[in-house]
């Protein structure tokens, strides 16, 4: 199998800053992504996702380890990698507000040497795909956040890269814009040969919907890497319960109960929603006892199927967001 990304013992350390010690952003990361794969990287803020992407995109040097992208070393052969990759980040404000959407896209296409007519053909085609034809001649500073992000996605794909890095591409977008972007990404990988996507996201459902494989990363280390189905299966041994109660003190104590392997909670409007990953179903009785002993009222209890979120909670010990 041809590998689009190969990272061996990749470590990235950021230097001392005003008395703080060195920050280890990535620690001994071993990861391979095959050509044609839609690969997801899931992790909380500061987990090392963006650092990883920036090293792969030749924007940052690794401190230790070996990294190859499309068969080329990121340190020694960056020039061979760059024509074949592109990157889109969520909330990106690149381009120039004075230029129109079409002009901005044309400008970025020129940095990849795409002939003018071909660039214009691709831009028109992709603007139509994203429903942005009517904004083609609008100045970038006048369009909405969602439209701007769609433009950014077009910018990334218009150069027809073999490997694209999508760093939280649907961050802060409404449902329709997110769906349009997800569908495009999915079709781009599946309908063409040899195209690879590395996607980082906060959204578990997005990773579940899009990715062939997912790696869970936290504090610079890869904790698990498999297909979403296999990852879910790995926590199926555990029982997933959702419990709603009235508010009570000492809620964090629930995470330390014997048999509780994952726990997260949210409180709103006099209601506490808790999600548990339990080693055994019988533990739910202890949890209910814990709650009622604190004079809280149980509003509902339900058993559910594990999601990527449960996988994440079990591995990391806390929720993503």
């Amino acid at each position, binding site marked *: 199998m041809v590998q689009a990304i190969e990272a061996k013992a990749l470590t990235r350390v950021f230097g001392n800053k005003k008395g703080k010690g060195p920050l280890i952003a990535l620690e001994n990361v071993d990861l391979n992504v095959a050509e044609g794969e839609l690969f997801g990287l899931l992790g909380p803020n500061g987990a090392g996702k963006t650092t990883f992407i920036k090293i792969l995109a030749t924007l940052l040097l690794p401190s230790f380890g070996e990294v190859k992208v499309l068969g080329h070393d990121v340190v020694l052969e960056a020039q061979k990698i760059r024509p074949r990759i592109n990157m889109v980040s969520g909330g990106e404000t690149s381009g120039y507000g*004075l230029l129109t959407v079409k002009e901005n896209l044309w400008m970025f296409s020129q940095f990849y040497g*795409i002939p003018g007519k071909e660039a214009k053909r691709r831009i028109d085609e992709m603007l139509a795909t994203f429903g942005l034809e009517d904004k083609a001649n609008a100045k970038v500073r006048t369009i909405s956040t969602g439209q701007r992000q769609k433009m950014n996605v077009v910018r990334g794909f218009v150069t027809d890269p073999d490997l694209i890095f999508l760093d939280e591409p649907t961050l802060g977008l409404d449902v329709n814009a997110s769906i349009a972007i997800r569908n495009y990404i999915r079709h781009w990988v599946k309908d063409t040969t040899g195209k690879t996507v590395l996607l980082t996201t906060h959204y578990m459902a997005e990773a579940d919907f899009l990715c062939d494989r997912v790696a869970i990363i936290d504090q610079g280390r890869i904790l698990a890497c498999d297909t979403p189905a296999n990852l879910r299966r790995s926590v199926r041994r555990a029982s997933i319960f959702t419990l709603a109660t009235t508010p009570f003190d000492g809620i964090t104590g629930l995470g330390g109960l014997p048999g509780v392997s994952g726990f997260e909670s949210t409180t709103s409007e006099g209601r506490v929603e808790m999600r548990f990953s339990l080693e055994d179903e019988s533990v739910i009785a202890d949890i209910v006892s814990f709650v009622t002993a604190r004079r809280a009222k149980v509003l509902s209890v339900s058993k559910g199927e594990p999601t990527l979120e449960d996988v994440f909670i079990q591995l990391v010990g806390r929720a993503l967001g």
Partner: protein
Amino acid sequence: MIDWKLNYRALLGRAYPRIIGASREPSWMLFDIVLPLLGIAAFIYYYRAMGAPEVFTGFVVLGGVMTAFWLNVLWSMATQFYWEKETGNLQLYMLAPMSRMAVLGGMAVGGIFFTTIRAASTFILGFLVFGVQLQVSNLGGLVATFCLTLFALYGMGMMFSSLYMLYGRGAWHLSNLLQEPIYLVSGIYFPVKQLGFWTALTASVIPITLGLDAMRQLMFASPSVQGFLPVEVEALVLAALAVLFLIGARYSLRYMEYLGKREGRLTMRWQ
């Protein structure tokens, strides 16, 4: 191997926002033509009140014209990578396969185009309003000197831009340091020879010093015009400066890019 076609396209691509920008913000006519003219007028009336030779009026207008290029180099070339980094464009430039010199070249070409319109407007209006008499002794030499000055000036801007790429706001002080003192040491509004040989020689590192001096000698054939050095020598020094700055820009940019990649400073902290 250098991909000339790619770099040519990249250069045009980067020049485009500056070229088209000139027509998209009409307010520039007020800020870039009328206001500089007022600054020039102050010096002209000052010289006239002192009874200075009339040729000084021409000196001031030419100084005002070249100031436009100097400010463009300082604030739109040298500092540009700071802004590009803020908006996220810089990382996209660094990600793309074209030469970084093509990006800088595009910024320079676009900047020269935009500023030439402004400078030409100041030149024409200045000469019409203040009745400056030209006595051009060598038109070809004048055009060549002007082009050499721009090459050297924008080459210097390209070299400085690599500093901004890495040091961001820290490099801002450099621009502040260079802006006001240069009005004095480069002889923007008076013949630089008045400063004495060593000061003028030191100031010659800034291409606008010798460029202005040479152009004044070629534009105003008057006994009052006493150049700092012969025009031929000044042209040679400008050519040498242009080559040095361009080579310096290439290597400095490469080194700063390496440092930026090593220290993680090519991209925004929040990203």
